[in-house]
């Protein structure tokens, strides 16, 4: 009897662990894929927000003070304040990025040629990350850690079938930083290797006839990871394109400055330089965004992220199936029924109205 109790305790515990890991993964997924929950484009939670951090506690105090007033518009004010900090952070960071150039000009060592060494590309990347809310390699690594954890938990409840795969993910995740160096294919390769390894070892077991929901879950989980690998490959390609455009714009800024030096034109203050930088970038990105290739790439990236979301929700449903709660698909059915009934009621109401009008007329 004791053993039976232990069995159920373990079973419940593994369900709880899975759920907790799942929630953690879902949060990371949202933050990484959709910029929701914390990081939106240009928000204070985007990567590279050291400047904002300085003010975080002070800002929190201000926001709390606002909350105490019972102001219903506190979110707008809070968000605006956060964006103001974020923008001034970008402004300051930009100064940091271009400082070597300013020094070179003042020390008359600036040759006027486009010289990437004059600006640190890594720092420049931080500015671009901030503006577009792009994921840093660290964020993606963190996401992978979470997935690996989820896999391990799942592995326990599936009698360790998938543990080796989870190990493989963890090991490969450590090699991920290379993707930031502009090799879109690297992620895809890593994941296909993992899938191949898995298939050659534990994957075979799933080729046997149906073994119930567990098999369905594992298959869906595999599908989800495949989706993630596609998403990450697309995301890498997308980010790479964004960085390349940023670097092209940076070179354009340097060229413009070189031209101004040659023409003995004056830049009076940092604001003016900031405007030059901003306009050059806006133009460069607008040109990129206008291309059919970009629309295509953005469409595919969105599609890939939506596939991940869709399969994760499906998997979630499978896992929650045994619990006494209404599932998403069940709610969808209910909404559909309500929608259809409402339509019918409205038609009937109209018919009654017309009949009443006809009776009055008669």
């Amino acid at each position, binding site marked *: 009897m004791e053993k039976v109790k232990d069995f159920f305790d373990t079973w419940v515990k593994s369900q709880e662990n899975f759920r907790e890991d799942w929630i953690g993964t879902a949060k990371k997924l949202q933050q990484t894929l959709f910029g929701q929950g914390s990081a*939106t484009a240009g928000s204070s939670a985007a990567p590279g927000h050291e400047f904002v951090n300085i003010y975080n506690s002070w800002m929190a105090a201000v926001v709390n003070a606002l909350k105490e007033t019972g102001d219903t*518009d506190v979110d707008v004010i809070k968000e605006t304040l956060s964006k103001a900090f974020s923008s001034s952070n*970008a402004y300051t960071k930009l100064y940091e990025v271009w400082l070597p150039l300013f020094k070179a000009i003042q020390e008359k060592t600036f040759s006027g040629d486009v010289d990437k060494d004059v600006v640190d590309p890594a720092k420049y990347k931080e500015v671009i990350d901030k503006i577009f809310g792009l994921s840093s390699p660290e964020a993606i690594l963190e996401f992978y850690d979470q997935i690996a954890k989820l896999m391990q938990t799942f592995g326990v409840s599936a009698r360790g079938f998938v543990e080796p795969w989870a190990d493989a993910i963890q090991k490969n995740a450590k090699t991920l930083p290379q993707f930031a160096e502009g090799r879109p294919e690297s992620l895809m390769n890593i994941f296909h290797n993992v899938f191949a390894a898995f298939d050659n070892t534990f994957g075979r077991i799933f080729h046997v006839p149906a073994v119930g929901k567990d098999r369905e879950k594992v298959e869906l989980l595999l599908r989800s990871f495949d989706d993630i690998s596609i998403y990450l490959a697309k995301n890498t390609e997308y980010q790479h394109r964004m960085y390349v455009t940023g670097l092209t714009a940076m070179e354009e800024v340097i060229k413009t400055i070189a031209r*101004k030096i040659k023409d003995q034109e004056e830049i009076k203050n940092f604001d003016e330089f900031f405007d030059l930088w901003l306009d050059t970038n806006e133009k460069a990105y607008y040109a990129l965004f206008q291309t059919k290739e970009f629309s295509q790439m953005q469409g595919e990236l969105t599609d890939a992220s939506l596939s991940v979301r*869709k399969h994760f929700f499906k998997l979630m449903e499978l896992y929650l199936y045994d619990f006494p709660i209404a599932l998403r698909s069940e709610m969808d059915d209910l909404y559909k029924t*309500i929608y259809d009934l409402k339509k019918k009621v409205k038609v009937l109401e109209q018919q009654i109205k017309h009949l009443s009008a006809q009776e009055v007329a008669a």
Partner: protein
Amino acid sequence: MKTPFMTFDTKTIIRELGEVNRKLIRGTETLTEVDEIDVGTAPKELVYEEDKLRLYHYKQEGAVTCRVPVLIVYALVNRQYMLDLQPDRSIVRNLLQHGMDLYIIDWGYPTKADMYLTLDDYINGYLNACVDFVRERTKRAKINLMGVCQGGTFSAIYASLYPEKIKNLVTLVTPIDFSTDDALLFSWSKKMNADSLVDAYRIIPGDFLNAGFLMLMPFTLNIRKYLDMLDVLEDKEKLLNFLRMEKWIFDSPGQAGECLRQFIKDCYQDNKLVKGELKVGARTIDLKNITMPLLNIYASGDHLVPPSSSKPLNNLVGTTDKVLYEFKGGHIGVFVGSKSQKELAPTIAQWLHERAGGETVRNTPLRPEQPQMKAIKSAKREQSERSRGSSKREQSGAKKEKTQGRRDKKG
């Protein structure tokens, strides 16, 4: 001799950066003094509701000089209070001052229970119910319809389905021809997998759409705008105006999945409205059924709904009384720009007064000196000249409409 390049040194840069931070800190004090970001303050009463939709009637404090009521139809994206964002920049207040009787639809915030709502539900259902309500309430067979942005598309579709209920149609910055690639949203939407989007979300979050809007001008909208704000942070009134706009921008209702699916696929991707192939409910939309007078207003510098998408409407409708009106500004400027306050509302009011079929208190132009009316008069003159010299088929207001000046700043 020109001044040497980069006259600023490290000290001045540091001073500039310090100044930015000083403004930020001092401005924060002003932010804490903001009690409420009030928007949509023109007095109005709720007169009809159905599901999440609300229909409001604006209180007319003066005299109603144009007795044919106007029903304003805003887009499903963002909120209708853009037309009454702040008291001194309010098309609504302005139209009221010009003697109009106004109703406005608030579509509400859809929840998952609304995910199955289709274009048919919005147009043949909700919009039709509002039109009928206003007709019954004012005891008029026909009313005026004024559609804004996507609300303009809905209004054009509605007017083609129920021409017997619409006296005059006014469209503002309205997308009609979706084949254009003059605006990023149009080209991006063509590559969007609407099925995946709807299947994954059901109700597409406003944040999702906002992320797309911010990408249109990422540096301006994410950085410059907030740095520019620092200059007004210490002025409470100016700051409030900034915050009102911020509130509107990020107050984005989710989109009912089925409706958005159809709008993306049938309009953005297949351009069915222009091709005469769009089906709403059981009927196919033929814009030629728009036989009532049409005032089609577009913004020359609109980066969300480019002129190339709005202008073709005048070529597609069946009416001969049609005016294509160019506003020199951007998409948002149409509603809140100081120029639009002086120009657009009086123009619309006058145009509607002239087409009220005798149901006006006075028929004389309200502001005879408005330069903008010259554009309408000239368009009308042009139209009558054309109708004298050519077939009716060629009486397009859009085709030969003069453009007025240079392209303005982006909205």
